[in-house]
């Protein structure tokens, strides 16, 4: 049985979690390596979603549905990946979370899904995350990037606190901090000493890649 990579890709583009789950299970049953199913099937779907979003052919509700489908496929394939002793090459480790007092998660979740699709190892701390939680997780995972989301002008200040807390913990020399959210601007990112800002999830992927390339160039990351 030939693996139907194009159907896997299509299940992500059309945002169909049930189909994505079924195709992932089928791949496992047919003995297709989980890594192949991810890289040659599902991930390509997510990449297409990103492109279509940038071209304004897909919109946020579509992208969320695609993200759900991606999650569904990965929840089948990730345990399989571990069982097979295989590992996706890690493009970088990223910690994500929404600031203390803020319970908005859609934007951050999208960023996480897209980063995962593009080969990053993502730890999503969820919403209402304290500075200490960001610091602890970053230390524990030797993270390359911390992404802090905020949707309110009031909780936006929390991004500054996270940058400061990471600094106090001595992590800033090797750790990049990126910020996002509706009220956030590039200027604000500069003001609080963050390393980058992206206006949407697609740009967040490009931003993260760009920052890590710079790190590699500077010799910070062992590859």
């Amino acid at each position, binding site marked *: 049985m030939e693996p139907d990579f194009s159907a896997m890709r299509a299940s992500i583009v059309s945002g169909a979690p049930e189909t994505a789950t079924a195709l992932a299970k089928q791949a496992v049953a047919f003995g297709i390596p989980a890594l192949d199913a991810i890289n040659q099937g599902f991930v390509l779907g997510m990449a297409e979603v990103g492109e279509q979003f940038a071209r304004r052919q897909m919109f946020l*509700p579509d992208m969320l549905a695609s993200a759900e489908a991606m999650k569904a496929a990965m929840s089948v394939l990730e345990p399989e990946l571990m069982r097979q002793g295989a590992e996706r090459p890690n493009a970088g480790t990223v910690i994500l979370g929404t600031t203390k007092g803020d319970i908005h998660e859609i934007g951050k979740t999208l960023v996480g899904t897209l980063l995962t699709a593009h080969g990053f190892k993502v730890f999503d701390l969820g919403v209402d995350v304290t500075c200490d939680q960001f610091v602890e997780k970053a230390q524990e995972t030797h993270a390359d990037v911390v992404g802090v989301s905020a949707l309110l002008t009031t909780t936006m200040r929390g991004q500054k606190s996270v940058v400061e807390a990471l600094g106090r913990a001595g992590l800033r020399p090797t750790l990049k901090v990126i910020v996002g959210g509706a009220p956030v601007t590039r200027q604000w990112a500069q003001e609080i000493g963050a390393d980058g800002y992206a*206006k949407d999830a697609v740009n967040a992927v490009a931003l993260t890649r760009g920052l890590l390339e710079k790190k590699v160039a500077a010799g910070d990351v062992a590859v």
Partner: protein
Amino acid sequence: MRPKLNLLDAKLVDRILEEAFELLERIGARVGSADAIELVGAAGARIEGDIVRLPRSVVRHALQSAPHEFSLYSRSGQASVHYGGDDVHFDPGSSCLNILDSESQNPRPAMSEDLVRMIQVAEMLPEYAAQSTAMVCSDVPNEIGDWYRLLLVLWYSDKPVITGAFSLGTLQTMISLLVADSGGMAALESRPRAVFDVCPSPPLNWSEFAAQNMVELARVGIPAEIVSMPLAGATAPVTLAGSLVQHAAECLAGITIHQLAKPGSPVVWGGAPAIFDMSTGNTPMGSIETAMLNLGCAQIGKALGLPTHGYLVASDARQIDAQAGMESASSALLGALAGINMISGAGMLDFLACHSIEKLVIDAENIGRARRLLKGVNGSGETLALGTFAQTAWKGDFLKLKETRTLFRQEQHFPSQVIDRTSDPNTPDILARTRDRVHELMQAYERPKIPSAVENALLKIASEIERSIAFEHLPGIETCLTPH
């Protein structure tokens, strides 16, 4: 419910029509064509020289035979423009002499290549249901200037065309081109692709050319669109109501001539009324009163059950600026709310003296907004919000709901990148964004597939006439022709 704007109350509509009938009966219209005078004379008009006084029974009779609706067809045979009811369509403004140069943004005489580009851009924009013969090309001799525009439109477009002749001789050439394009007279009559604008001269004057034009168009069954142009305060009464009376009288006289030439021939109650600016002596197409006149005219036409046309979405600004946006946006919305069947004028600047491809693209955004407004608020769901809240309550994750994904495209209009919603301080300005969009549209454009027999027939008509005036070029087309 679709929103609708009626500018006039029923009583005022009646008064305007009553005075228009009275005007034609007592003062009369001047008619320059012997053919037309004979037609109305035989029907019972009182003729004194070129003054024609029309009894209302004659006018009423003509109104009875005028069709309430008709369609224009694309080359592929689709009825893509429906004149009638409250259907709304837009087309670019017509017959402009200048173009705002895309590079320098300075006006200069329009060339064939400019018209070709505008046709291509309009072809790619679904906001324009029809093309227009938008520019008079300065690289083409005057004698053939009007039909050459039509040739270029037919060559580069599949859409219906709003056009018009500059003389009776060239009207015949334009009809020949359309016959060749449709593959025969019968095909053209049953599925007309073009409507011809015909302009009476204010006040109440149907010149020899205009009146004869109506007669000829009626006889061949090609739709005629009356473009009456009262200029309130200069060539028409200063009051809007008075100008509406004059507009109605001019249209009624035109329809009478037209229907007497051939009852049942399609005709449009149209116009390009405007006020006269009392400080500059200009004719501001972007003024609110000009928009009001257009709305009033259309409402009178609708009261008579006739298809309607107006001239809106144009601006008097000389550049693409805030004034251009403001004037064009408001008149696009008003025209759409009034349910005017064909709204001409998009792309135009500087009192209709200058066309702009970039403005045409920006105006498509104005039209998109107006179309969204016309769709109104949909209240047809089983519940409006209760069903939604049953799924999500206080969580507020509406963006994740299946119904959001299913319905957002119907609820929201998506502008192109011309409209900036990025909140990014580095976003290019509107001119740069529009130029990008023009570039994209031009890249995506493909010339329609036209049967070679049709192409040859069109070229034969063109080259025969051109030879007679010793002009042997086909500007704008030559690059498409492969040497035999």
